[in-house]
């Protein structure tokens, strides 16, 4: 029994040792496996691990405010609620969006776009599903949040324009980034971060000063777990708030101006400082509510805006082109005086027309002005006088003077989409019409008709340059202090001297005063009675149709009897106060009738408002 036990013990010992050996061998295999994973493939897994845990989220900076010269906010940020989708937490976006559509009015097109975005996006930034949720929608979504895995309600900031249409054209608006913005940004070396619902300036000052307003995007590196839940913050780079932009514009004056323009169907006006070019008001009527654009405008609303004959989307003050009409007589006069071809006392007889080699050029006043010198001719806006003056001066001098006064090319306001208008000349005619310049064209150009076009802004600048001692002021909306730290638009000087003779400028101003102060003046009815606030200026009535000989024979059809589109544009350019010019104004009423009756009173009220508000002194 002992022997048996011994042999069995030996067998056990042998087998136990074999088993132990096998176990040791298998443990060695485990060690080998660990060596393989941790040492040989360690780097690869370490990389995978890094990707596993860090989630980079962008922090949008608060956009800078836009303030008027009295620091009244014109564009500010309001908190809003938005629904975003976290890609890494979503399994089936289409099912999820279908669920969402039962809660909020998300269109099929929007849903498709989100699915496309989701597929295209390689980084794992959240995607904006629906912006500006109402309280009811927030409540409904919150209630269903447990079933909406991958969705999140975020608090964001949205642009708000408290003055709505009053500032629409100047401020522009922000909107979602589109491919065109990205292309432009690429060219400028700017890069937009992939922030859900990122909005950039799309127009107006919002676009012009976008890089100043937008600030610097921050980011936060978050450690997330496998469920996408945030564990903690690893690093945070705070967003840098955008700079506030202070404007030279006065919102009170702007509203006064718009109140005046509201009397018309379609018009625009610019008020600026004759010395600095600071724009105090820049208005275009009718307007639109820029707040509607912030979240994407509805198609019907858009169709209404684009189909409106009064072009509410266009900033007519900088983008509307009009024949300057008689307001151009300022250019003609100064060209004549500077060329030494105009004796202000020398008289011209106006029979109601000017005969150029048998071809009659009509004066607006049927029957003529009789005998007029410069002062009377300017006051009564005698076309015959200026036809003759234009003939003497010639198109080349007219063109050169017009260009010195800011016509024919952009004056360079800090707004996008400014237009330059047209100041024709010989070279232009040859290049664009393939004909020689005709003397008759010089005559009609001298009274601001024909090919010539200008924006209200250009006309205001023209006005400013002849009453500020002949300095080439340029307009700007941003205030000096504001532009300084932005290092953006530094120019705020009165501009270089244009080299005009001071006596000539006095003569011109005297003539412009006569327009308002003399009973024969076209704007006498719109004069300012308070002497210290008195204005001067020039009316203009720009013909938009050709008056045939037959019509002239039967009597020119009154504006009131014409279709709106065929009525004359009413213009007025002016300045105040008379003795020490500070404000220049240009008013254009589209198809308004006559400058004297339809534009001058508006300009008067605007210049009165400027002075009473002491806008420049604020």
């Amino acid at each position, binding site marked *: 029994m002992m022997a*048996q036990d011994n*042999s*069995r013990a030996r*067998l*056990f*010992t042998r*087998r*136990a*040792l074999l*088993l*132990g050996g096998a*176990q*040791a061998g*298998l*443990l060695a*295999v*485990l*060690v080998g*496996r*660990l*060596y393989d*994973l*941790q*040492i040989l*493939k*360690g780097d*690869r*897994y*370490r990389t*995978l*691990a*890094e990707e*596993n*845990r860090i989630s980079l989220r962008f922090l949008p900076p608060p956009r800078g405010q836009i303030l008027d010269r009295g620091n009244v906010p014109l564009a500010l940020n309001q908190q809003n609620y938005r629904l975003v989708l976290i890609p890494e937490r979503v399994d089936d976006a289409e099912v999820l969006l279908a669920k969402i559509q039962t809660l909020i009015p998300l269109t099929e097109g929007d849903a498709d776009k989100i699915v496309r975005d989701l597929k295209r996006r390689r980084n794992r930034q959240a995607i904006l599903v629906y912006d500006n949720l109402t309280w009811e929608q927030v409540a409904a979504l919150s209630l269903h949040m447990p079933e909406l895995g991958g969705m999140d309600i975020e608090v964001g900031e949205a642009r708000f324009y408290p003055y709505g249409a009053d500032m629409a054209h100047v401020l522009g608006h922000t909107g979602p980034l589109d491919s065109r913005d990205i292309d432009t940004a690429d060219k400028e070396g700017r890069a937009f971060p992939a922030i859900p619902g990122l909005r950039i300036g799309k127009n107006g000052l919002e676009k012009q000063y976008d890089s100043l307003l937008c600030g610097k995007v921050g980011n936060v590196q978050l*450690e*997330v*777990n*496998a*469920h996408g*839940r945030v*564990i903690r913050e690893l690093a945070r780079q705070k967003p840098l708030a955008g700079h506030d932009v202070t404007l030279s514009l006065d919102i009170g004056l702007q509203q006064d101006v718009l109140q005046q323009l509201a009397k018309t169907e379609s018009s625009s006006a610019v008020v600026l400082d004759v010395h600095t070019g600071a724009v105090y008001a820049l208005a275009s009527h009718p307007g639109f509510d820029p707040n509607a654009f912030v979240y994407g405008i509805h198609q019907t609303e858009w169709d209404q805006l684009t189909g409106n004959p009064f072009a509410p989307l266009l900033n007519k003050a900088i983008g509307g082109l009009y024949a300057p009409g008689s307001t151009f007589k300022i250019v003609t006069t100064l060209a004549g005086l500077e060329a030494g071809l105009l004796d202000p006392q020398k008289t011209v007889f106006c029979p109601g027309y000017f005969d150029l080699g048998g071809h009659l050029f009509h004066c607006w006043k049927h029957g003529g002005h009789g005998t007029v010198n410069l002062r009377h001719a300017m006051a009564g806006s005698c076309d015959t006088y200026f036809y003759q003056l234009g003939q003497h001066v010639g198109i080349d001098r007219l063109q050169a003077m017009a260009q010195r006064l800011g016509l024919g090319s952009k004056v360079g306001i800090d707004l996008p989409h400014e237009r330059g208008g047209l100041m024709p000349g010989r070279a232009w005619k040859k290049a664009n019409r393939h004909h020689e310049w005709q003397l008759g064209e010089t005559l009609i150009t001298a009274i601001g008709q024909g090919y010539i076009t200008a924006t209200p802004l250009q006309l205001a600048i023209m006005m400013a340059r002849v009453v500020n001692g002949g300095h080439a002021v340029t307009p700007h909306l941003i205030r000096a202090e504001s532009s300084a730290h932005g290092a953006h638009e530094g120019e705020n000087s009165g501009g270089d001297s244009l080299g005009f003779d001071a006596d000539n400028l006095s003569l011109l101003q005297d003539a412009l005063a006569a327009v308002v102060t003399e009973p024969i003046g076209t704007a006498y009815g719109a004069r300012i009675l308070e002497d210290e606030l008195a204005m001067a200026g020039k009316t203009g009535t720009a013909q938009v149709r050709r008056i045939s000989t037959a019509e002239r024979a039967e009597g020119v059809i009154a504006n009131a009897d014409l279709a709106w589109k065929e009525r004359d544009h009413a213009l007025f350019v002016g300045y105040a106060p008379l003795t020490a010019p500070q404000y220049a104004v240009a008013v254009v009423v589209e198809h308004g009738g006559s400058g004297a009756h339809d534009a001058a009173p508006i300009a008067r009220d605007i210049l009165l408002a400027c002075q009473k508000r002491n806008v420049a002194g604020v």
Partner: protein
Amino acid sequence: MHNQGEMGFRGQAFFMPVLLISAEHLTLADKVRLVNWGLVVLIVALGGIGIGLLYSAGGESWRPWAGPQGVRFLVGLVGMLALALVDVRIWLRLAYPLYGVMMGMLVLVEVMGHIGMGAQRWIDLGVFVIQPSELMKITLVLALARYFHGLEDEEIGRLSRLVPPVLMVLAPVGLVLLQPNLGTSLLLILTSAALFWGAGVRVWVFLVALGLGLVSLPVAWHHLHDYQKARLMTFVNPEADPLGAGYNILQSKIALGSGGLFGRGFGQGTQSQLQFLPEKHTDFIFVVLAEEWGLVGAVALLLLYAGLLAYGFAIALSCRNLFGRLAALGLTATFFLYVLANVGMVSGLLPVVGIPLPLVSYGGTAMMTLLLGCGLLLGISIHRDVRISRTGISTS
């Protein structure tokens, strides 16, 4: 034992009641002196590492895992030492009854599982929860050791004598498979195989059994639950569905691999800390170690296990009764299989079967089972010189 009286005097005065249920020759003091303290140190070291890892995995906090685990470990340790003092002959006598009780419990959970919902594997006794399939690992070892202990040498060679132990194995395996718990079933089979091996069953029997097993694989596959099939398929190709069934293995490998040689430091394992890792406190606790302590830490833990296994073999080899030898071998094999299955699983070598890392993973039942096993092992060590006849009567 000339000093027995002196020692006994002091001990007996105090511990008389306890001693009365124990064996006749060894006093409590003798037993305490005979305790294999080296093994105890290894066990404490493993348990301590487990608590440390749970502290880290819980975000460097005693809650929710490290604290409860520490308490359980301490209680279990006391229980283990108490069990170690129980005479091995008592275990021999209780082997079959315990096995019967566990079988009854397995049937009970099976029935309850059908009444209740899903895979229920435990019995809630109010005070604590019993998972019969876990305890069966120990009682099966004891029962098999008891059976082979009672066999004459020649009987080992007879096939008919192998029928009872095979049935003893297949009965619980079948019930555990019904739960369904593939991992534990395999563990039971392999532990039993180690015992059969130690008992001296002929080598050709193993070969035939292996052959039969391979042949029946397709049948077995057919009867697997979908999630079990998925796990096996996932094991074959985890990258096929990185966010689904393969997620655990992939994340586990990422965490393991990113540990490198020296690891990321205590509490610094990003994968473990960031919940990329599923079940990090239970079945995947080894990953926390490997990520935070690197290959060095992982190998150190494996060496501790190797040391524990070496003690187990030493006890089995030094034991002078067959019951103790076979039981020690079986318990050691169980321990080894836990380690192999767990580390193999988390490193992607083996399919995910849901087996904890012994003494380290969070969880009461597994810890209790393993400390119970260690208590038995220590008891066998203490009583290694006790000779027991085939019928279970002490001979020395």
